């Protein structure tokens, strides 16, 4: 590998035979797809047979770092975990920060490709160039926190660990993979680990990673990037409040979904205001290579139970809070913590519970259907019980373990109240209030995901432009450009928050060029992003997805939010042709041959 930032090889692990090997990283793969999400897109598209069962032996788990991971590029601590999603059936990559990704790099690996299925529970130990599968019989059934504590005790505290919890073992379709309190969660990779009987991964590396230029040039170049973040006026808000600082602001602007998106504003969010959350903070903690420092350790109690964990984030506090019609902070934090320990994506958990609540509100579900639990909006006490039941797939929890759309289909009713796209639940930004987010939810490959084109920055925060948040005018081009530029962030892999902290597309190009020594321009960023989005689209198209799947729940076109004085509705199908044209896709949403050829897919 002639480029810096890469180790030049993937570790391969065949769970069926137990064979461990390596796959050299092709230079053209690095040039065309960068890393992280790009690698996962290309590898899954090329390697997976079509129409496989995501929980069957043919699915693969791909851990992928990027060339910036662990190289002192700001916030590049992240690692992507890719699978064909059991929740959506789409291609899917989820990301987690912390220290796991850099450690894998220092161990000498750009990523890990896991294939097959093990006959018994195992965990993977990667100690530098040596890797082996070990019996995980004693870990099976343990939660993510206990599992990782046992691994640190057994292997040594200098191993970085990640694990699934009981939810992954039980193949809850939105189970996650947890490294400490960092989750690769959306799309349910943990269920694939569970199906493969891979309980955990532990990594230690003493090798390190080299970059393209001498330290004497590289260090000052990185320092400039850190200084841009440090001096950005938004940075102190992240440093102090984490992501939850956005919540009251978005609510005030009638942009925070409430009660399963029936309204776009909660009556009063003062109880979950970031100032309230800050009261539980003991100290601050960051990911590797980050000076944003949005994390912190909190201690709290609920009903006599004492907890210590990391501070809850914006999406989790919303999904389990206002989305369920409640603002009981300890109950929300407890449910979030239980999701982490059991290994469940908080956002889809909140979406499944809020679906059950709306079904209850409309008389479509009664206590007879829900094991006697009261799924009324606002009932904070049901959160803990619901999460425990989902993790165990016990009774009504077995239905909710399918996600909102899966639950509705299994029940035979209520799909119109499943607030999802392609099976993935919507995030904490109201589509009717931020139409770019609506279009992004409808068109993003892995389903309704706020992090693949965070147009709120351009529609509300004034960071990337000044668009009318209610109008769809100009949004197809905006969404397309942001989806493309975001693909680079997910491939380097840097943190999404840098978008809000002064890192422009030109600077992402620099972040790609510095460690690798490639000469990547802003124009290249868009082209590479376009290539990644197109490959993800081709994967989905060949899996049978079509224009009919690029739709929002019907609620947004038919009902305005009661709190919105402008009574806005949103029908993104009105601009779908324009969006497809921007993308070079035909009217059916299929990438045109000339686009595929131009991008060299």
């Amino acid at each position, binding site marked *: 590998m002639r480029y810096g930032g890469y180790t030049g090889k993937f570790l391969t692990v065949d769970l069926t035979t137990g064979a461990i090997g390596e796959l050299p990283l092709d230079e053209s793969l690095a040039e065309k797809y960068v890393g992280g999400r790009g690698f996962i897109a290309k590898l899954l598209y090329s390697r997976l047979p079509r129409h496989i069962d995501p929980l069957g032996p043919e699915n693969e788990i791909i851990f992928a770092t990027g060339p910036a991971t662990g190289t002192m590029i700001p916030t590049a601590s992240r690692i992507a975990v890719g699978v064909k999603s059991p929740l959506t059936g789409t291609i899917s990559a989820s990301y987690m920060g912390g220290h796991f990704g*850099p450690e894998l790099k220092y161990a000498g690996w750009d990523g890990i490709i896991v294939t097959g299925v093990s006959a018994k529970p195992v965990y993977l130990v990667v100690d530098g160039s040596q890797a082996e599968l070990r019996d995980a019989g004693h870990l099976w059934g343990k939660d993510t*926190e206990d599992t990782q504590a046992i691994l640190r005790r057994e292997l040594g*505290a200098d191993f970085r660990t990640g694990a699934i919890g009981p939810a992954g073992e039980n193949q809850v379709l939105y189970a996650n993979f947890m490294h400490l309190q960092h989750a690769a969660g959306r799309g349910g990779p943990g269920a694939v680990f569970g199906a493969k009987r891979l309980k955990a991964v532990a990594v230690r*590396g003493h090798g390190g990673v080299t970059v393209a230029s001498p330290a004497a040039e590289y260090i000052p170049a990185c320092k400039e990037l850190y200084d841009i973040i440090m001096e950005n006026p938004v940075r102190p808000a992240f440093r102090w409040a984490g992501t939850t600082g956005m919540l009251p602001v978005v609510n005030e602007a009638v942009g925070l979904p409430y009660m399963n998106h029936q309204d776009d504003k909660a009556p009063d969010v003062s109880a979950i205001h970031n100032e309230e959350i800050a009261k539980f903070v003991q100290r601050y903690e960051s990911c590797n290579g*980050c*000076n944003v420092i949005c994390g912190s350790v909190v201690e709290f109690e609920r009903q006599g139970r004492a907890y210590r964990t990391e501070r809850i984030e914006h999406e989790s506090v919303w999904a389990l809070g206002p989305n369920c019609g409640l603002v009981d902070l300890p109950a929300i934090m407890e449910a979030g913590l239980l999701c982490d320990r059991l290994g469940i994506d908080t956002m889809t958990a909140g979406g499944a519970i809020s679906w059950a609540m709306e079904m209850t509100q409309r008389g479509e579900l009664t206590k007879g259907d829900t094991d006697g639990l009261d799924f009324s909006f606002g009932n904070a006490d049901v959160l803990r019980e619901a999460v425990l039941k989902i993790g165990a797939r016990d009774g009504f929890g077995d239905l909710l373990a399918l996600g909102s759309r899966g639950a509705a289909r299994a029940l035979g009713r209520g799909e119109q109240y499943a607030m999802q796209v392609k099976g993935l639940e919507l995030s904490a930004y109201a589509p009717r209030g931020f139409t770019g987010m609506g279009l992004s939810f409808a068109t993003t490959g892995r389903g309704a995901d706020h992090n693949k084109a965070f147009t709120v920055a351009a529609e509300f925060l004034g960071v990337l432009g000044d668009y009318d948040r209610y109008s769809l005018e100009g949004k197809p081009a905006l969404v397309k450009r942001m989806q493309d530029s975001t693909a680079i962030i997910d491939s380097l892999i840097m943190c999404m928050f840098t978008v809000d902290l002064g890192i422009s597309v030109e600077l992402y190009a620099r972040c790609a060029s510095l460690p690798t020594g490639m000469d990547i321009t802003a124009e290249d960023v868009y082209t590479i992003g376009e290539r990644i989005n197109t490959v993800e689209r081709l994967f989905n198209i060949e899996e049978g997805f079509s224009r009919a799947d690029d739709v929002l729940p019907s609620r947004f076109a038919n009902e305005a939010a009661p709190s919105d004085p402008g009574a806005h509705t949103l029908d993104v199908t009105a601009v779908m042709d324009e969006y497809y044209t921007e993308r070079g896709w035909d009217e059916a949403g299929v990438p045109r041959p000339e686009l595929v050829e131009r991008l060299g897919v």
Partner: protein
Amino acid sequence: MSYIAFHKEHCVYCELCSSVCSLSKLERVQPRGACITVDRDPADAFGELRCSVCDMTHDRACVAACPEQALVWDEKAGVVRFVAELCTMCASCLEACPNVHLDAVTERIMICDLCEGDPLCVKWCPEGALTWEGRS
């Protein structure tokens, strides 16, 4: 005598100190092979953070332990110097002091040299958890 001081209440475990140290000394980012390392109380996932770097102040056990004069006290600079050519990898220094580190790739013994009077780790710490004390 000047040295790097660690203030654990301010440390956020970003590993920038050990990353920049290793890159500067080894031309590789490798936090474990740096002159300064940060880790956590192993018994507790949220446990206390600990820093390991030469404090320059005590008995220079590493120098005393070295049978080959591969570690020498530079009185003028106030730091211990490593002479790679004389090192036999006996690991006596590593046993003598927990603040002596090893880069596993080059087999270099890594001891803080205060970056010749401008410690990078202090400059890079985003939270003021590292300070340069006692300099004249």
